[in-house]
């Protein structure tokens, strides 16, 4: 698989480390009433879809950036690559 890095261009996926579903950006609020349940769901439960999924890849063998890759789990086709920080910023999670 080739991942089209936003600044470095086409890179072999073997340069990356895979973390999983991009929902991991959305760390729950540790002060919420439901925090125990929220953190359990966050840490252990996954949607695991057959089809498009947004997921976190870390460019360990490159510029060490975190990316959000949109990829189809039934074909391995990659349709979008973004910096995770941009995604997080858009959601108001990072400065």
């Amino acid at each position, binding site marked *: 698989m080739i991942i089209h890095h936003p600044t470095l261009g086409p890179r072999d996926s073997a340069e990356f480390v*895979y973390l999983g579903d991009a929902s991991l950006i959305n760390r729950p609020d540790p002060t919420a009433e439901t925090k125990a349940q929220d953190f359990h769901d966050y840490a252990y*439960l*996954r949607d*695991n879809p*057959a089809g498009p999924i947004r997921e976190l890849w870390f460019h360990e063998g490159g510029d060490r950036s975190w990316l959000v890759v949109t990829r189809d*789990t*039934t074909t391995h086709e990659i349709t979008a690559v973004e910096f995770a920080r941009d995604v997080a910023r858009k959601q108001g999670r990072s400065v």
Partner: protein
Amino acid sequence: MRYSGLKVIKEALTGHKGWTPAWRDPEPKPSYDFVIIGGGGHGLATAYYLSKIYGERSVAVIEKGWIGGGNVGRNTTIIRSNYLLDGNEPFYEFSLKLWEGLEQDFNYNAMISQRGIMNLIHSDAQRDAFIRRGNAMILNGADAELLDEDQIRAEYPFLNFNDARFPIKGGLAQRRGGTVRHDAVAWGYARGADSNGVDIIQNCEVTGFRIENGTCLGVETSKGFIGAGKVAACVAGSSGRLMAKAGMRLPIESHVLQAFVSEGLKPVLPGVITFGAGHFYVSQSDKGGLVFGGDLDGYNSYAQRGNLPVVEDVCEGGMAIMPMIGRARLLRMWGGIMDMSMDGSPIIDRTHIDGLYFNGGWCYGGFKATPASGYTYAHLLAKDEPHPTATAYRFDRFEKGRMIDEKGMGNQPNLH
């Protein structure tokens, strides 16, 4: 029909006209006491033990394709019970004991071959860890044997003992481990279950669950609604997809694992060997092909095929311990979809929906578990309480902090 040597001779002399299909091909009834989703090894074994041990007669197995076309027909057929942790080892040893009596039990030749499995040791620290694991195995009634370099040399003289980076220093052997003809396991269980009255319904996909007031009443399928007293999900790599239809999110990700077979060779490998410093394992099939594999590709996938970096990694592992493998040509390679759980161990449990049960999270090691998985799942379905060897395989272990994490990797499915 019972199979026997006498029957084979009789049929040989009478033109093989007396063989009948090994199982029926029934249309689904409107409802059953038990509907098992998934005609892989585990689903068929569950139906077999449910009918044979627990005496249930109203049982159906619903399979979306043909039975045995999933992971039970795609794995590298290794059986063993060499686990460390208390939640696992009694279960896998129970499974190995069931394997030992299986062919007589279900009257089918599954070519169970206890040719032994050898985990190679490459460092002093690894020897310590393997001694600990061997002791845990022995404490749980399994067999384990620690071998030094000379003993391994006597059995496997061709290994690369003096590799500069990963010299072979010894091994942990389990002599009762080995290989099985995987397709025959599906067929043997199917035939046994069918002869006890279980309906095996192929080419019938479960497309949804009928759930009212927190109770599961049956399944919607491509052949219409089928009512059920209890619905038992057992679909391995499709677990996430299936349970999403019941509104459940699971502690599971689906990943692809590849396997490889070389051209047929004369007998060179008497048993199963695993590389202890990288991820590579190999055995030789009865047809002569070297059957080998290694790591997951490492990303979520339902594609049943992998990519080249892992092919390279697996072949490097092979070259590191067994350089002669470089002369063999690769004949076939394929992938299967693994239900990788958050701690690398399976789940056999009720769900929060009454009448809906779940079996999954087998990762890359569920073939060896087939008999015990079927037996203990049947126990849970029939008695509504876990079998004594499977009490740890609960959904709530993540919440309670009781993970069964053999490798100590944490909640990262692609590292187990």
